[in-house]
């Protein structure tokens, strides 16, 4: 008797489920895609149809335009081919989900990107029991352990005040979709002074506001009067704005970067930011290990990030582990 086929395989076009004849976050056009979340390396243009969560829909509409979308509630099973599929919150960004696949008496879960820290902008990660767990490993080394985000957000406000005292603006670089909105939601708890936004971030903030997410009041930098002094303001901008002509309007400004990579001093210094704030939308090492345990999986496949370390550590702890070389990136870099 031939060995039973894996429920998910790595194909040139992406992760593929033969039993259900669909792909998960494929990087090349396929007839049927299940999308874990709206980041560019997971949700791409050109699929015949898109299965996604209700939370992801506005983000996908914004980024991919009108497509054949099939929206599914959290935990509500649907049939694709011979597979029973359901979507479960992943806690990464608004609408992000894990994909649970059941076929032939086996359960596989593909995590997409996820984190375990609280995030007021999305539903918390839900551990799902499974036989095989496909996990991300962006921060798969034990030096990555996240501080409490509320503390970090207080540091950001302190930083802005220090900048204000020196007559400088505080320009905080962060990923435009997810991180920026999470920071704005967390900031609302500790300050009511509005933040200013770079155009690339404003659009994503509007999508979140339309979805009913409460965040700090914001204004667009572009709509401020010409030549105004930005001293003491907190300004959110995408990392690509660093060193661009757009920065010139702030004259005296300090720069900060909000990312899990800022946990290491060398990363911050190499990129010449004045401040690094450790806030990540990915699981840190302790949470990656805890999550694997909570799924009860006997086999784990790591998809992107520091897969070598996590694969070896799991194998040594008695969980069969391997890695897939995927095209998923890292929006925090």
């Amino acid at each position, binding site marked *: 008797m031939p060995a039973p086929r894996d429920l998910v395989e790595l194909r040139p076009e992406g992760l593929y489920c033969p039993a259900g004849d669909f792909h998960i976050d494929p990087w090349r056009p396929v007839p049927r895609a299940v999308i874990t979340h709206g980041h560019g390396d997971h949700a791409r243009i050109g699929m015949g149809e898109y299965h996604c969560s209700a939370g992801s829909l506005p983000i996908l509409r914004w980024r991919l335009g009108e497509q054949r979308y099939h929206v599914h509630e959290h935990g509500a099973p649907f049939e694709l081919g011979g597979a029973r599929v359901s979507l479960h919150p992943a806690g990464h960004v608004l609408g992000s989900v894990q994909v649970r696949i059941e076929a032939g008496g086996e359960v596989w879960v593909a995590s997409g990107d996820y984190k375990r820290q609280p995030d007021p902008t999305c539903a918390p990660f839900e551990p799902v029991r499974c036989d095989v767990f496909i996990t991300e490993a962006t921060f798969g*080394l*034990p*030096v*990555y*352990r996240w501080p409490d985000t509320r503390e970090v957000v207080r540091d950001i406000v302190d930083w802005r005040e220090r900048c204000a005292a020196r007559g400088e603006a505080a320009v905080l670089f962060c990923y435009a979709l997810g991180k920026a909105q999470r920071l704005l939601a967390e900031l609302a708890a500790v300050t009511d002074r509005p933040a200013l936004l770079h155009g690339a971030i404003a659009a994503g903030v509007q999508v979140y506001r339309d979805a009913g997410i409460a965040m700090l009041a914001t204004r667009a930098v572009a709509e401020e009067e010409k030549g105004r002094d930005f001293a003491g303001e907190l300004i959110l901008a995408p990392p690509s704005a660093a060193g661009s002509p757009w920065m010139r309007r702030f004259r005296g400004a300090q720069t900060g970067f909000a990312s899990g990579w800022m*946990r*290491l*001093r*060398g*990363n911050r*210094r*190499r990129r*010449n930011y*004045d*401040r690094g704030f450790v806030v990540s939308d990915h699981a840190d090492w302790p949470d990656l290990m805890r999550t694997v345990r909570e799924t009860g999986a006997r086999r784990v496949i790591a998809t992107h990030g*520091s897969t*070598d*370390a996590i694969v*070896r*550590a799991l194998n*040594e702890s008695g969980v069969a582990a391997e890695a897939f070389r995927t095209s998923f990136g890292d929006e925090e870099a």
Partner: protein
Amino acid sequence: MKRFAALYRELDRSTGTADKRAALVAYFREAPVEDAAWALWLLSGGKLAASRARIANSRELRAWIVAESGQPEWLVEDCYDHVGDLAETLALLLDDPAAEDDDRPLHVWIERELLPPAGADEALRRDAVVRAWRTLGFDQRLLFNKLLTGALRVGVSQRLVQQALAEMSGIDIARIAQRMLGAWTPSPRFMRDLLTVEELPGDRQQPYPFFLASPLEPADGIEVAARLGEVGDWLLEWKWDGIRLQLIRRGGEVALWSRGEERLEGRFPEIEAAAGALARDCVIDGELLAWGEREDRPLPFTALQKRIQRRKPGIRLLAEAPARVLAYDLLELDGTDLRTLPLRQRRETLATLVDQLADPRIALSPLVDARDWTEAARRREDARERGVEGLMLKRRESVYQVGRRRGDWWKWKIEPLTIDGVLLYAQSGHGRRSTLFTDYTFGLWDGEALVPVAKAYSGLDDREILELDRWIRAHTLERFGPVRSVPAEHVFELGFEAVNRSSRHKSGIAVRFPRILRWRRDKPAAEADRLDALKALAR
């Protein structure tokens, strides 16, 4: 230690010197004097791990963190590889203590926790370190680990610290710098003496801080030199490749201080003897060289190196590599500080003094004559032939300043020798390069094998460093601790000042000041240079 950890964090974060100086001033104003003394010592490059008995070596620290963090050894090594800095890796691998962060001051930590177990049995030393790891929050833990593993390397120059102390105390920076020269013990008493307005007896035994020349680019032609004005306003000298030193003769006693702020007594008895015969008390700034009696040029730097390493040189070594001082400048005569006089005047007095001595072991560094910059540039071309590194340009009217100040003194080196080497090994750098492989070892062909000949740390731009870093990670053949070997594939043009034969190096060759000039993407490894070609340049 919280206050000092906060200062460390502040210095580590700031990119501007004004901010760093402000942070230093604030620290020295507020810190208790016992702490301030240790802080100053540490910021000046003092290492607990080196100057006192060792508290823990790198291998022990890694073994202890394996036990304390519960991570397997290979994973700790992977993390160290990834982070590139051991002190930081150790701090990152642990969670913060649940209890309130420890509040004891820096000097208590050093004097009661760190120094007592130094040199004791492993169990005792381990207890002290692990106890600290468990009680300190992240910032203090990182600093504590830095104290264990070496220097702070936080991007603060000696001059910046001295500026802060001068700003805070109102004492002249030159005096502070002078009082800090050489080895000193961090104590409240030292701190008070350092910042006292009174004249101290010790002020008379110290050398002066050296005035250093700024570089012109070797490739700079006469058009650059011409911007300096009339050649007649300048004194031109050879740039000797020895050790810069101050020869101090006060009250008949002689002391030799190197630019590295080290006292050299005993090592160069012939110089001390010659200085003893000087007619007057004085402080001479000059270059120490190894120079055979009947030679017309100095011996290679490696000869001098042998002399420095030997605390009490034997007769054979003294004959093999006799030392000589070429005098550049006169800083003090009969107890009078001459540094604010113009150079031409100081040099005139120096010439008289040295002429009277009439001993080749202390001679005047000759001037290089040039009617215009074109001739100066031509004379510079002779440099390698004469065994010197190039020309020194000093403004005739210049006063003797402190440290490297641009404007009055320039060094104009000759273009470096070059050779094409193959990248063999890489190691991660320090500071802002600690997460990248930036320390490279290069080899040359010797028959079918590549022999390592030079290490270089600089010369590539940030983009090239990133590209090479990625390639190294993807193509690692073997790991030896922090060092990775890579396939012989990439060729780099290396520049260096001189090549000497050396019995201490596997290749039989030692290169002076190697650096990367460019990445030779056009050259396959097989076309890199041969060791013989480098040997032919050696002397």
